[in-house]
């Protein structure tokens, strides 16, 4: 691949990030995707739309989120300064709302009165149900029957917000089956329905649109760094499942060649065990869920079951822009195990009084590793993408504690 100077000009008009991305979908989806692409390309340059979005991000989501110097954690680690971009302080407790508020506004401008979403752990479902309530839209969330059982609190939360949660009983009865079901709904009801995808994967224009809505994280962080520290960070890190919070932080810094970028994938029980979800670190290029990207699959091309203690990272693909950044050498992607993430979770809780989401704890663990590599005056900026209240039961169960 020739050396890339401007990372901000991707994707191209076909939705491709170099060799990745695109629209690998059935013919029935081509028309709705074309309609969405047309609408979104117009709206992303529409000052009225952008002003409406900014206003909701400020007064409803609570942006900007601060950058916090985790001093006691940094001292404990004994290396560079660790800075946390506090996306956990957003309304609903994670970066997910940046995207769902944006897509709901697009839906409204397109005249769609019904939104659908699929969810694994329930976070994206809650974020979708939240914005549907905010804009008075009907909301249907597809969720695997197994996940519904595992995530009762989030299911109830969605119901409180007025959403219908539809259990999916086909296949493994988890996220990917919910995704298939949501696709079916969209194809069947496309006239009045908008499909809110929760990560930077899927067919064009989703990887671009979801990235654009999350890129506020990096834009804010870049300005905050310059204002408070007078310089850019030495290294960025964020956890990568589908990769929306990571691309959100990374994007504004992609053309800053001096800023190192490291994505933390879920290495589960260790990449060597095969029980992980590290698509970039251990997968290969393939086609899944509408885009070309790195996937975890066997030699027959069957997508393999993934494992992570964190439901939000438990995905066998990854956003195509990350695949592109990996091949271009612009970002590195490394694995963080369940145990490392849990250790980081506890350490952050005790040194800083912050309960991080298990997903984000992978980023914190990676930030700690990076801090040890750098001198004391270096700056490691870590995206704390969500708060951990949702995970306390998982952690208690794993550690044999009855709550």
């Amino acid at each position, binding site marked *: 691949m020739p050396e890339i100077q401007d990372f901000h000009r991707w994707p191209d008009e*076909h939705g491709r990030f170099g060799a990745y991305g*695109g*629209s*690998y*979908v*059935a*013919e*029935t*989806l*081509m*028309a*709705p995707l*074309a309609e969405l692409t047309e609408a979104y390309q117009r709206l992303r340059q529409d000052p009225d739309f952008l002003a409406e979005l900014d206003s909701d991000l400020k007064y409803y989501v609570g942006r900007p989120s601060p950058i916090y110097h985790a001093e006691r954690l940094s001292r404990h680690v004994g290396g560079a300064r660790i800075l946390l971009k506090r996306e956990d302080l957003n309304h609903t407790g994670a970066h997910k709302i940046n995207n769902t508020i944006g897509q709901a506004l697009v839906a409204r401008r397109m005249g769609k009165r019904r939104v659908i979403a699929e969810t694994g752990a329930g976070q994206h479902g809650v974020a979708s149900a939240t914005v549907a309530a905010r804009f008075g839209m009907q909301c249907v969330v597809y969720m695997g029957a197994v996940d519904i059982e595992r995530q009762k609190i989030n299911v109830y939360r969605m119901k409180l917000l007025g959403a219908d949660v539809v259990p999916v009983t*086909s*296949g493994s009865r988890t996220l*990917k089956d919910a*995704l*298939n079901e949501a*696709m*079916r709904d969209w*194809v*069947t009801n*496309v006239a009045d329905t908008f499909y809110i995808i929760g990560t930077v994967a899927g067919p064009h224009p989703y990887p671009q649109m979801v990235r654009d809505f999350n890129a506020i994280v990096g834009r804010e962080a870049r300005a905050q760094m310059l204002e408070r520290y007078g310089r850019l960070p030495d290294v960025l890190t964020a956890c990568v499942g589908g990769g929306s919070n990571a691309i959100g932080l990374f994007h504004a810094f992609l053309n800053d060649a001096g800023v190192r970028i490291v994505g933390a994938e879920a290495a589960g029980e260790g990449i060597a065990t095969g029980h992980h979800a590290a698509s970039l670190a251990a997968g290969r*290029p*393939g*086609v*899944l*869920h*509408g885009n070309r990207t790195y*996937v975890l*699959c*066997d*030699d*027959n*091309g*069957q*997508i393999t079951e993934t494992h992570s203690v964190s439901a939000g990272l438990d995905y066998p693909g990854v956003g195509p822009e990350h695949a592109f950044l990996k091949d271009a050498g612009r970002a590195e992607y490394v694995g963080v195990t369940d145990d490392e993430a849990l250790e980081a979770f506890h350490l952050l809780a005790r040194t800083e009084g912050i309960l991080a989401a298990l997903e984000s704890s992978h980023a914190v663990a990676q930030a700690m590793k990076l801090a040890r590599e750098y001198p004391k005056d270096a700056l490691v900026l870590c995206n704390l993408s969500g708060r951990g209240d949702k995970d306390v039961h998982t952690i208690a169960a794993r550690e044999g504690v009855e709550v």
Partner: protein
Amino acid sequence: MNRIDRRFAALKEASRTGLIPFVTAGDPAPQGAVALMHALVAAGADVIELGVPFSDPMADGPVIQHASERAIARGVGLGDVLRWVGQFRQRDADTPVVLMGYLNPIEMHGYARFGQDAARAGVDGVLIVDCPLEESAVLEPLRVAGLRQILLAAPTTAPARMAQLCESAEGFLYYVSFAGITGAARLSTADIAARVAEVRTRAKAPVAVGFGVRDATSAKAIAGFADAVVIGSALVERLAGATEADEIATRAREFLAPIRKALDMP
């Protein structure tokens, strides 16, 4: 001449509507796979659509998804499918076989290698559900190997795009008869008739209509305006649960026979 083109030419000559059954390779039982293909031909199939099992069949309904899951659970992969087509060809040199599936298994096999292996086994065309025309550049080695790329068209396809599909159609153009996934039961025949008539005048290949065809009556309704009728989910559902090769073949024959008869009635 490709077997698909030859078969549709013969159908046209005889003024017959083609019957294209779909089965998932290796379902309901891998040991009956080849016998099932012969049974489909004996019951009047003009083209066989053989589904390559995939773990994430996004565009299929639950019936075909479950068939895929059952086949994968029994270890069926693309290599098995090609082997079965090869075995089928030993006794049937004429019936066209189209592999229907998703891109990732072919990508992992390697496009050039797949083209060669499929052509050698006796595959005539591929219908790759998640590879629309816009992404078809990767399929060039398949074309070089002589395989037809069967394209899909839908009621939601915009006019400009439909013109492009009609222009690029080869083998046959597969018109999905309602905007949805496979196996759902909604079909306004008059609607489809008008649209398919339009497509048939412009397409550079015959037009097969599928999705939602369940029995002799619904098949016959389509026969009036299509070059061929595709039947998938209803057949797969009928075969599910059979374990012995004989029983599978019998069920297939019993299911298809009345449909063939209805199609052939003047």
